[in-house]
């Protein structure tokens, strides 16, 4: 790699910086919302479409891919979920939720029409605009496809702004695959989809192995131009992105162009409760999306 520094455009950076809420009344403000659709994906995961009830609030609600929100079921609890839908749809979000605890099990019972609360959006997102003109690698493991569905939607809607777009998606078994009904549409939008499972079942005809196997194939033998102009977004279990990021690093993909989303259990989402701290960094404010250089500097991040 050429040891050449790049010019930093400060004005463009300032414009990108999104405004923080400094109003005291914002702290516990909940958007009353309705579950308008419940769509089971697998035995464990369901996609919930949630719409803000107030039309004015709905109009104002904006988020960027990678951000999360707090979903509240009064009397049951509140938990963070990353947004799984397109950022161009305002006031309505889709959350891909796995049954894992009290809140998510209860949610599975309430169904369509339930009134829930949402707060947010919170945290950092993937810098999609910065990626314009570049190749993108979207690498997901298991439930990690849920937060990736938002940048994928962005890439679909703005396909002309990107060069090559690759999705690498690995799961334990074919039965765990999420959003299977969308694969065809992604391919039609000229997004290369590579799926790999750890354990095949008799009907499985695709690849078997780890996502790094596919990544290796995609990255091998490319030009320097490809490596230097590629962004990677990685979501999945910690053990996966450790290996994926290591591999990306050996191909000299810049660490500032590799983004990961860290999972922590936020109780506030606003940098107060400390439950999401990694080392001593708030995942809810400085993250959940971090570039890999930052992650390397965080203790016990992965």
């Amino acid at each position, binding site marked *: 790699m050429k040891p050449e520094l790049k010019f930093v455009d400060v004005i463009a950076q300032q414009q990108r910086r999104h405004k923080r809420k400094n109003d005291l009344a914002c702290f*516990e403000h909940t958007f*009353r919302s309705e579950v308008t659709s419940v769509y089971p994906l697998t035995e464990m995961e369901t996609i919930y479409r949630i719409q803000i009830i107030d039309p004015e609030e709905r109009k104002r609600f904006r988020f960027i891919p990678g951000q999360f929100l707090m979903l509240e079921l009064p*009397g049951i609890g509140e*938990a963070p979920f990353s947004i799984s839908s397109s950022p161009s749809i305002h006031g309505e979000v889709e959350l891909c939720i796995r049954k894992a605890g009290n809140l998510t099990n209860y949610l599975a019972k309430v169904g369509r029409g339930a009134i829930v609360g949402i707060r947010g959006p919170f945290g950092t997102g993937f810098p999609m605009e910065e990626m314009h003109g570049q190749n993108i690698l979207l690498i997901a493991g298991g439930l990690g496809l849920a937060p990736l569905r938002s940048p994928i939607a962005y890439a679909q809607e703005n396909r002309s702004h990107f060069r090559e777009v690759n999705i690498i998606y690995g799961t334990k078994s074919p039965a765990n695959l999420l959003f299977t009904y969308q694969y065809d549409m992604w391919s039609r939008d000229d997004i290369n989809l590579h799926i790999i499972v750890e354990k095949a079942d008799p009907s499985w005809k695709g690849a078997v192995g780890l996502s790094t196997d596919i990544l290796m194939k995609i990255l091998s033998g490319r030009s320097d131009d490809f490596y230097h102009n590629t962004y990677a977004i990685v979501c999945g279990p910690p053990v996966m992105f450790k290996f994926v990021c290591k591999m990306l690093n050996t191909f000299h993909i810049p660490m500032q162009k590799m983004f990961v989303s860290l999972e922590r*259990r936020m109780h506030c989402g606003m*940098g107060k409760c400390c*439950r999401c*701290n990694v*080392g001593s960094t708030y995942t809810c404010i400085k993250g959940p999306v971090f570039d890999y250089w930052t992650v390397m500097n965080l203790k016990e991040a992965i």
Partner: protein
Amino acid sequence: MIFRTFKKDELKKLVEILAAHNRIVGPVEAGRDKHGSPIYAFNEVSDFNSIRLNYTTTKLPAKRYFLPFQEDLSSFRTEGGGWQKIIDYNADKPLIFFGLHPCDINALNKLDKVLMHSVYPMPYYAAKRKNMFIIGVECIPQTFCFCRSMGADTALHGFDMFITDLGNKYFVEILTDTAYNFLKSIRTEEPEEKDHVLYMKAVAERNKKFTTRVDTTDLAKILDMEFQSDVWKHWGEICLSCGTCSNVCPTCYCYGVEETVDLDLKGARKTKTLHSCNLIDFAEVAGGHNFRPERHSRLKYRYYHKHRGFVEAFEESLCVGCGRCGESCLAGINVPEVIASVRGGKIKK
């Protein structure tokens, strides 16, 4: 800054005038320990004579008045198929804090930075903090105090007035106009040069009494370097993970949120409870994965947050050096020894 002096018996008058119209919290004797020494606590007081201005330190900070152990963030009323959220910041009356030491005032200043002056200011804290009137008093350094090492032995702001004992009278620093107006109700005098000398002498005398020191030079960096050090395992071995240190800490603000349904099934509430990073479930995520399953990793995290993370964010430590955690720790773990061991790379036998 405006300075005044007043005769000692005027203080009683001031407190009585203030107590007639306000609630006052001050240090009182709550009991005696097994050696017969008094145990002090911050309680609501109405009688000047029950206030112990020469108290050593309190077992618990005054935290429960601004960061209560438990408080409702909101409640819900069900109506039809939906619900309404009712938000209450749980503050209704101003409160006078009489007799806070510099360390406890500095603790508030540090909490202000994260809870009030950063993104998403917390209204539950702000509502209480903005309704505090603080009368600070000079302390008597104890053997376990290391506030001087943490730069928290003097309070420069965060109080309304601050009183120092000059022998036969009090020297008072006035920071707010509210304090200035309150002082009009008693007889005060303009300090003379000899009062300044007496004040400086009193402070110098006090400063001589600090015995415990913590070397904080490059501490943030050293904590990073020694992240894998075995000394953490040693402290983790003896730590009971009981969370007492956080409970008695004037700056620990971490919490958890839980929701419960009311017994009449017509409502629900969202409750915030102070938590401790030493408790096992602190960093647990959905599905049961725990990012800090071992005691040593949790204990280390606590030091990390206090002495590194907060420094990174606000250029000062979150520890004020009051020494309460060390005094209360059932396993006898204290900050000066832990930091010395991290710096030295070994446990002092």
